């Protein structure tokens, strides 16, 4: 359905052409990042007293708040991202190959932000190495937080390996198309490369993908991260085996949303309508609907189980949660998004890429706020509930809130830099794409790639042509690069 042939030149365009929009985006995100780092410096100097956190108990507050909620959110995006990319490779979902590397890069950037949040959250970040390492062989047997550190490190390594392996193929073939200053880097990346390794690398990547998919529910957002909360006896709001699946559904919805947003921006900035096709967005939207439905379903399970005949403290925390405006807003947003996705599945003309973009932003907002509320409400309604005499309502301080904006800016900044260093769409994708056009290749591959895929593709062409034209007009003169970063700041705030 592409209007033009996709070529390797398309994917190296970000490396060679830099528009004023890129500089603007870079400037804005760099400024925001620096501003936040300054604020963080203030926190380092004054201590965590500059947050609105306090001691739960007689202190009347919560000791974990926005920082931990945002940490879970970033880890969720990261883990969901790598799961998406692994699924594309493992199940041969060729349609999504153009966004597979975006998902991997999102994983790296989001994991970095999650790691940063661990530091930001700590009272003595200067001791992170000297204190964690000596006791690690013992703490890893007992402390869920030590498991967390292990898993985050493990996934950073796996994703980087993944990326490193797949990039060699591209780097070896694009050597003549890249700007001169990248040549030394590319010669390092392709050290010892021979064509014979392609097949081996492909197999290695397949096994890595298998490992990631298998470990996702066991160790990732379906396991270790929820265990941080669900294994504790102190807070009834966090308990229950449902937390594993619940966290995983949040990770997947957040990551798909992230991929939709980034793909949207890239597509606009670099004229990639023929690479990241409308079909890809339709598919991602359907997947978002499926995982969003899981998210809402698991929420319902928790609510019903807690309010029907659970213990006093479990009921207390759930009643407080479901009557909280933040919760109502988060679930309300999810329901609206699900409504849109259901409607466009039934009637394809309801679909539009900007609408899916808005849905993605709404989902990210919902998952972020739901997760912060999960942490805060959990601590506010402990099993030992006698502390009611010193109540305190937690609302994050300016320093805390600035960290969300700051990390989003930093994450965007990382993306902007990556855009100038490696192709964010893999070479395979444009090659495969060409194949698909010529020989009807897609018919023969596994068609497990999309719930209700038939509907979307059937109704696709007319709507797709329309949208593509609109964008063609907008981007016809120059490619205004991810103008984008700043847009995101505004919308996310």
């Amino acid at each position, binding site marked *: 359905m592409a209007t033009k042939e996709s070529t390797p030149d398309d994917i190296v365009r970000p490396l060679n052409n830099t528009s004023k929009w890129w500089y603007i985006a870079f400037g804005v995100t760099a400024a925001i990042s620096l501003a936040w780092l300054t604020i963080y410096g203030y926190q380092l100097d004054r201590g965590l007293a500059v947050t*609105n956190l306090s001691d739960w*108990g007689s202190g009347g507050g919560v000791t974990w708040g926005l920082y931990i909620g945002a940490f879970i959110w970033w880890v969720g995006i990261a883990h969901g991202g790598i799961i998406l990319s692994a699924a594309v490779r493992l199940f041969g979902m060729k349609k999504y190959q153009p966004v597979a590397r975006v998902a991997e890069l999102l994983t790296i950037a989001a994991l970095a932000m999650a790691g940063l949040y661990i530091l930001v959250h700590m009272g003595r970040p200067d001791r992170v190495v000297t204190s964690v390492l000596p006791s690690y062989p013992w703490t890893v047997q007992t402390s869920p937080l030590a498991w967390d550190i292990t898993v985050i490190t493990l996934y950073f390594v796996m994703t980087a390996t993944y990326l490193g392996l797949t990039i060699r193929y591209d780097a070896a073939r694009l050597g003549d198309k890249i700007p001169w200053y990248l040549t030394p880097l590319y010669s390092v990346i392709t050290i010892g490369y021979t064509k014979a390794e392609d097949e081996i690398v492909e197999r290695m990547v397949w096994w890595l993908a298998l490992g990631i998919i298998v470990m996702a529910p066991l160790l990732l957002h379906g396991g270790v991260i929820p265990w941080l909360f669900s294994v504790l*006896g102190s807070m009834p709001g966090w308990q229950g085996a449902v937390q594993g699946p619940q966290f995983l559904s949040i990770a997947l919805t957040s990551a798909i949303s992230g991929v939709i947003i980034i793909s949207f921006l890239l597509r606009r900035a670099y004229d990639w309508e023929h690479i990241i096709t409308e079909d890809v967005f339709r598919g991602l939207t359907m997947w978002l609907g499926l995982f969003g439905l899981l998210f809402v379903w698991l929420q319902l399970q928790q609510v019903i189980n807690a309010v029907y005949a659970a213990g006093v403290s479990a009921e207390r925390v759930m009643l407080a949660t479901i009557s909280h405006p933040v919760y109502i807003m988060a679930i309300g947003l999810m329901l609206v998004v699900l409504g849109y996705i259901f409607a466009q599945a039934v009637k394809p003309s309801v679909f539009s890429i900007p609408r899916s973009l808005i849905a993605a932003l709404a989902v990210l907002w919902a998952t972020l706020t739901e997760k912060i509320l999960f942490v805060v409400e959990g601590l506010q309604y402990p*099993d030992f509930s*006698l502390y009611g005499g*010193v109540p305190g309502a937690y609302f994050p301080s300016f320093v805390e809130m600035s960290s969300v904006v700051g990390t989003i800016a930093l994450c965007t900044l990382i993306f902007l830099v990556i855009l100038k260093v490696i192709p964010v769409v893999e070479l395979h994708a444009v090659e495969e794409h060409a194949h698909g056009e010529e020989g009807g290749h897609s018919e023969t591959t596994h068609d497990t790639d999309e719930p209700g895929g038939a509907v979307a593709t059937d109704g696709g062409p007319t709507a797709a042509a329309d949208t593509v034209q609109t964008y063609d007009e907008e981007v016809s003169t120059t490619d205004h690069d991810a103008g984008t970063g700043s847009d995101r700041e505004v919308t996310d705030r």
Partner: protein
Amino acid sequence: MSADDTNETGEEPRHPYETDESFHPLGAEWEDSMRQKLEETEFDADLGMQMARDAQRLVAGELTEEEFYAAYHDDVEEEFAVDERAIFDDIDAVDTDVEDESVLEALSGVDFENEDVSRREMMKKMGAGAAFLGYGAYATFDSQDDDEHIPEDIRGIRPADENERKHRWGMVIDLERCDGCLACVTGCINENGTSTGANWMYVFAYENEDADQRNFLVRPCQHCSNAPCAKVCPVRARHTRKKDGLVLTDYETCIGCRYCQVACPYGVNYFQWGEPDVPMEEIMHLDELDDGRPATPENVRSLDFDERNRQLAEVEDHVYDEDGRWVDSRPPQGTMGKCTMCPSRQDEHTESHGPKGTVACMDACDEAGMSVIHFGDLDAEVGDDYDRAVRYLERRKEVEENPRDKRDRFDDPEDYENPPAPHGTSELNTFRLLEDLNTQPNVIYIGNEPGPNAEQVEGPVSYSSISNDWGVEVKDNRKEHLDYFSDGGGLMARDEEDDE
């Protein structure tokens, strides 16, 4: 409450080797199965069993190592052609503190199945990757005696077994006597110099749903024997002392992640969000070692045990424990604090104003004439040292004894002369907080447990009205206080940047 708190059997436990039937702690049956195992080998089973019996005596201190070695040298050489047991220069390998070594452990020097692979060697033989995974399983499986592998600076999360630890510090708190005067809160602040709102000792006034009566709940740290806070700590800063079960925070390694606070079901932790209100100079602590070096934690630890504790006691240090860990008094900025049950007292550093077996809140409560708090060794039996807690509990049980039982008992004049220890018929109400969470708290309360819908009410004395030696403001709602500072004005109670 379980029987192990009071140890009601009046009989002295006899060491297994003293009994005729079996020398092994696990009894005759186990011994027989061990003998069978030995007989399946090509070696002399009688010799093996005899050595095992004497090994138990050796461990109990009945035999010296020289005697043990000499007695069997010839036999062992004859049987195994070589005596590979530890000889004297290398005798450290024998852990004489451990009394319940199994026969196999005691015989570990004898290679009776030609598998002379010690744990240490086994570790070496594991590959690097396998060691990482394998060790975890191995240590968890056999965690009782893996101490030898753990470096000294890594603390444990459980007190040692009852026969290996010296004490199990804890409290008996008689809520029926408490009138909510908050003397204990003041006593604690005076002792530890905690910041505003960090009420390590906290007293609830509460009402149950269906009653108008005001009740009190005194809440120090419960110093759990299965402490969730120590379990979850990612750096083992929060740890449980093996020797006496105190749950403490090493302020020097704490990274301030606050997971201990999250995991604790009692809400006893207080983080040091900003600069402490009481600067370090004002807290009694060793400043300079006798040899002129500054008393940094590292230097303090470099001294040998006796010398270190002599110097710490000399200045009545209120910061270091006996191993030179910074665990006492208020925490520095960015680390977690909570009730410590006064480790510098229990380690005998502050004899003159706070002897071993006392805590500051108890002293204050006694001074106020209330005697609600009774600190002591919960392993002790009445008559032992530091038996105040268990003795008080016994007395209260006797007083509260069911009147009919009391009458029956005194019908017989002989019983009157020599009354048996009161058993389960006591009508005294006791409880431990949230016992079903299996934290094994070491604070036993006398009185009624708050109901599930109990509500905190205003107490007779407000927190803000109590004063203390440091002139630090006392508050109930710490959040209000902290949030005031979070407006960015930097109005720390004392703005002394350089006081660490």
